[in-house]
């Protein structure tokens, strides 16, 4: 009697908990869907007055000027250029640090250094922005005197420093999870430490390492503060990192902070840029996901 009562209560609890878990999952999906909906909804009027062709192929982005141009290319170019510079710094350095921490460092050293590294990503990005403007750029100017005060290079490098912990920490986790017998198998064949790290541990941890790269890329594409402060606010269709430029995110901040009235074309550009950003990150995530699935390793 008593046990069956107890069992019934447990069953009821189980149902409740399942309901709570399901609704929280549903909530996050609904919120994402709502954001995407708003982006689309607010962008539609924009594309009624600006043709797709102009949007994709015009070489200027000057929505707020009297001679308005609506070519997204300069912003995309700025976004990719800063991201590329950040990744050129962060991916090799982060990966090397991960290899060192996972395969060479003593247990004690790793346990001290990892939290310190992760602290780097806890620094507010606005501080990184001023770091880029007031420290990195002047430093670069001593080598490159022609460098302008606002430039892509300084902002990109600073962003790279900022995302190193994402790469190193997540890659290290993935490498550390590679089972010891696999490494021993390699050592038993007469491989050196380095050969084991490069030829066995990295391939075995490949899926986790790719995830860390994808996260770093998404983070770099979405980063706002550093580029808004240090890269200058000029849409600029150039591949020269010594010039100033503007990214999609920086443009969104700039316009959001202004006082554009609702419903104007200028106001709608915010959402169009948001939508573009959303598509870019979506593409990276899909590519990353399929890469990860393809190389998923079961130990």
């Amino acid at each position, binding site marked *: 009697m008593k046990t069956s009562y107890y069992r019934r209560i447990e069953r009821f609890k189980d149902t409740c908990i399942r309901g709570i878990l399901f609704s929280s999952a549903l909530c996050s999906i609904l919120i994402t869907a709502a954001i995407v909906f708003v982006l689309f909804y607010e962008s539609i009027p924009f594309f009624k007055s600006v043709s797709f062709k102009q949007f994709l192929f015009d070489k200027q982005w000057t929505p707020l000027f009297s001679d308005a141009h609506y070519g997204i290319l300069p912003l995309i170019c700025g976004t990719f250029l800063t991201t590329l510079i950040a990744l050129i710094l962060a991916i090799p350095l982060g990966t090397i640090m991960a290899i060192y921490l996972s395969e060479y460092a*003593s247990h004690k050293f790793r346990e001290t250094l990892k939290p310190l590294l992760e602290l780097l990503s806890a620094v507010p990005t606005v501080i990184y922005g001023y770091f880029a403007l007031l420290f990195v750029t002047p430093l670069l100017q001593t080598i490159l005197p022609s460098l302008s005060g606002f430039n892509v290079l300084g902002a990109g490098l600073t962003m790279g420093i900022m995302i190193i912990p994402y790469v190193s920490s997540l890659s290290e986790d993935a490498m550390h999870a590679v*089972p010891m*017998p*696999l*490494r*021993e*198998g*390699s*050592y*038993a*064949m*007469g*491989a*050196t430490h380095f*050969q084991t790290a490069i*030829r*066995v541990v990295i*391939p*075995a941890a*490949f899926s986790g390492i790719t995830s860390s790269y994808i996260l770093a890329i998404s983070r770099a594409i979405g980063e706002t503060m550093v580029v808004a402060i240090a890269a200058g606010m000029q849409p600029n269709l150039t591949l020269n990192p010594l010039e100033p430029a503007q990214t999609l995110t920086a443009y969104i901040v700039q316009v959001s902070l202004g006082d554009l009235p609702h419903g104007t074309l200028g106001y709608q550009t915010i959402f169009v840029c948001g939508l573009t950003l959303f598509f870019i990150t979506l593409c990276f995530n899909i590519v990353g996901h399929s890469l990860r699935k393809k190389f998923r*390793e*079961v130990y």
Partner: protein
Amino acid sequence: MVTTFKAQVQNLHFYYGTVEALKNISISIQEKKVTAMIGPSGCGKTTLLRCFNRMHDLYPGNRYEGEITLYPEGKNILDPKVDPIELRMRIGMVFQKPNPFPKSIYENVAYGLRVRGITQKSIIGEKVEESLRYAALWDEVKDRLYHLASNLSGGQQQRLCIARTLAIDPEIILFDEPTSALDPTATQKIEELMETLKEKYTIITVTHNMQQAARVSDYTAFFYLGELIEFDKTENIFTNPKVKKTEEYITGRFG
């Protein structure tokens, strides 16, 4: 028939930090014979096996005392001056659980050659085929050499690990319970393989399976609590053990 020593363990003590896992072990390994190590769980079989290729060097705090002399040159391989990487090129090891690398079947077998800096395709290709044939795996995998090794069955994976060891032409092969994760058919294949392997290689194997020790080995060593209790020809150990503990163990009265 003349037998020669391949290796000789003399007064070996081994410490995990302060824990003494091997106590004064002396044992001689005959060339081109199978030497089996038996004993209850925790008696130090794995520990001794891993002394032969200095696997313990990978972890801090481990300490050897005593000597293991490797012939023909008669050098003590526990000497810190001996490079463990060079040593491991001469002494292969097959683990308890198959541990193929996350690479293709072909690359698994080629691994030992590649880490030695050999790059000629023809040499590697020949060696891969020869090793896979020798490990009795060639016919099963020749059509999918470039597939991931993790797709093979457990028994096939273990034979792949043997093939990968054969590819580096070791002088001694160490087996640590190579069949404990396998079903009877796969186990039988590995046992038959050991039989052919001893024509060319010296084999040291750890096993929990008495029948297996009796079937495959020429010499058997019985360990108990880190000590070598008895070491003799396998037929003597199984038919006429001199120490009571050995008899109790092989007849299954304890352990």
